[in-house]
């Protein structure tokens, strides 16, 4: 998505792209609306017995009243749901019912903490692995085995050993977001250009200065790329983790609304998750731009 907006082909293309995007959106809405047009109800309430009317009421289909909610929502219903959540994002009805902003804050807090921990481990470790071909080979099998494990597979183990559900959530984010950072940092450090290292050697730069003044700036774009991938993985993981452990967060919100079989709330939550994920990605794209230099 972002490549469209960063295109350098002049404003006219950008404008046209925006127009096409808008058209696509309207087309989607129209199809959605048409697909959800109410089917004409046959038979009026007149020729129903009292029991039949009661039965219909019990199914939530009060003859004469508005149609019941539920099933796949129509665009108008979805808009109402979204408006309801967005107009009061900070309400707090006890531990099981909080506004969307509070839920998001909980999720972002967990992601931030897990991600930070992962950074603290992955970047230094990646540095060491990148500088030493021996360690790189020694660590490689472990990374290859641990990297593809799904967050949901970690969860029971985490719950059993850590014995705390919110710490387990943070651990799962940590363990899933550490690998791209580790691999990218190691790769970035290992592929710093020989000439620069040689220059550093000629100038007799100490090992610490070399690491911070030569290798780090040179590897920074790759490291940030690793962080960007990790962040999007962390955001993917949090929803699954929170659906499993419950409590708070956007994942719990999805689970709670699924429990109510309320699809319009679930769709709203999905939209929010998508938008927040995009914003996080944009943030790292900015950061990436800031540390990239033109040779």
């Amino acid at each position, binding site marked *: 998505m972002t490549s469209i907006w960063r295109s350098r082909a002049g404003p006219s293309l950008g404008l046209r792209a925006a127009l096409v995007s808008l058209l696509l959106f309207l087309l989607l809405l129209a199809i959605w609306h048409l697909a959800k047009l109410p089917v004409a109800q046959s038979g009026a309430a007149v020729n129903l017995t009292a029991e039949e009317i009661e*039965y219909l009421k019990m*199914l*939530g289909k009060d003859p004469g009243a508005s149609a019941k909610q539920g099933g796949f929502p129509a665009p108008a219903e979805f808009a109402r749901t979204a408006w309801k959540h967005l107009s009061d994002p900070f309400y707090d009805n006890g531990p099981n019912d909080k506004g969307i902003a509070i839920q998001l804050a909980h999720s972002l807090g967990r992601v931030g903490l897990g991600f930070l921990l992962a950074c603290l481990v992955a970047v230094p470790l990646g540095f060491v692995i990148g500088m030493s071909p021996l360690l790189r080979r020694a660590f490689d099998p472990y990374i290859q085995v641990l990297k593809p494990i799904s967050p949901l597979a970690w969860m029971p183990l985490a719950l059993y050993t850590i014995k705390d559900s919110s710490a387990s959530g943070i651990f799962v984010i940590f363990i899933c977001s550490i690998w791209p950072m580790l691999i990218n940092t190691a790769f970035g450090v290992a592929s710093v250009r020989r000439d620069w290292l040689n220059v550093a050697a000629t100038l007799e730069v100490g090992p610490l200065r070399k690491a911070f003044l030569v290798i780090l700036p040179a590897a920074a774009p790759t490291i940030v790329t690793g962080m960007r991938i990790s962040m999007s993985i962390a955001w993917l993981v949090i929803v699954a983790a929170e659906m499993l*452990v*419950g409590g708070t967060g956007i994942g719990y919100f999805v689970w709670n609304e699924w429990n109510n079989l309320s699809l319009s709330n679930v769709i709203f939550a999905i939209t929010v998750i998508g938008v927040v994920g995009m914003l996080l990605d944009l943030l790292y794209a900015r950061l990436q731009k800031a540390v990239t230099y033109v040779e």
Partner: protein
Amino acid sequence: MSRLPESPESASQTYAPYDADRPLMLRCSCGQDHAPADHGKAAAAMRSTSLSTEAETLSHDFVEASLIKAIFPVDSVRRRFLKAVGANTARAAIASVLPVSALQAMAQDKGALEKKDLKIGFIPITCATPLIMAHPMGFYSQQGLNVEVVKTAGWALIRDKMLNKEYDATHFLSPMPLAMSLGLGSTAAPMQVATIQNTNGQAITLANKHKDKRDPKDWKGFKFAVPFDYSMHNFLLRYYVAEHGLNPDTDIQIRVVPPPEMVANLRAGNIDGYLGPDPFNQRAVYEEIGFIHLLTKELWDGHPCCAFGTSAEFIQQNPNTFAALYRAVLTSAAMARKAENRELIAKTIAPAQYLNQPEIVLQQVLTGKFADGLGKVQNVPNRADFDPMPWQSMAVWMLTQMQRWGYLQGDVNYKQIAEKVFLLTDAKKQMAALGQPVPAGAYPKFKVMGREFDPAQAADYAKSFKIRKAA
């Protein structure tokens, strides 16, 4: 660890368990140490004593005396033992193996609350009604407790959070504490059932396409869902199909599926039906994808389903808090039993922070006037009920079914486990303290699908079924 009277002489004269020269009879049916003929006189004397400041000492001594009585049923043995080792040694020895102080504190229970901020887990189903509604109705705060009822994503998580001690007490499926105490499906941790949450209240729901297949004999190859292995849902479904000649392990498929996903899977045609908790049976009717084949009330009228309980450790450490919780939940159950309160309760527990369900669905479940999905309005007032008595015979039945289906291997001491896990005596005591009617007995017989279950013959019962898992 135990609070003991300094010397036998300082204790009241009514019970003197460590006095070798006095008989220890406890033989009157009122539980007191006097001949039945002297009951009236002694009871009057007791009443005046209990008004005095000695009431606490008296209670402590009574608990100790009961324990000694249990250890030495023959009085001459007790006397010889006490004469041989001396009263103080005997007291210390007994206190080191039995939780004397905890029992004494439990008998007292008017003391200060050890813990006021509590977390109680629940699964959002109508079975949890008493413990959920105690929150908005203020029954917890009435007892001086600050309780947070926390919605939980699944039964396995309830189990884990109880083992982790994240929850102080919780909503259980009633066979779960038995399974956890026995170490089935998890590490063994002693759990206890304080009260049953609800009786009846489940149903077998089938997909609409099976409207003409109401006979279970036609169900070969069907796929069913239940919420958890150690659940009445699983045991009742197995019992029901086995009574109709199907082996639940080979002729049908039983999967563990969370209740809301039961409805979605039924819609998708992934399963043919489920024996699930309400409101999800009624929800399938409301969504017009299934119908209620039968209420579990028709299999065993008054069967238990969910329970309220906690760990043995929590009770030992917080006896007063536990007693307060007991009172709150029992008050709640008494209110939920009354038919005239059911509509109000449906309204109270419908919002997002509790069950998060349409009110009309909950109302049908709780009042028993419901649409059955086949075009009829049925009226079954006791479709769901809230009888809190944790009858130990029910626990014994669950154990026989765990044996029958291979969850539990080898010989089982039914009564020992049932009495350890189902706190019937405590429930009765707390009900009496609240002025609620208390039924007698511990092992009432009941009928499951027309066949009487006698807890005294449990082992034979478990072996008597033709369809069972081969040992």
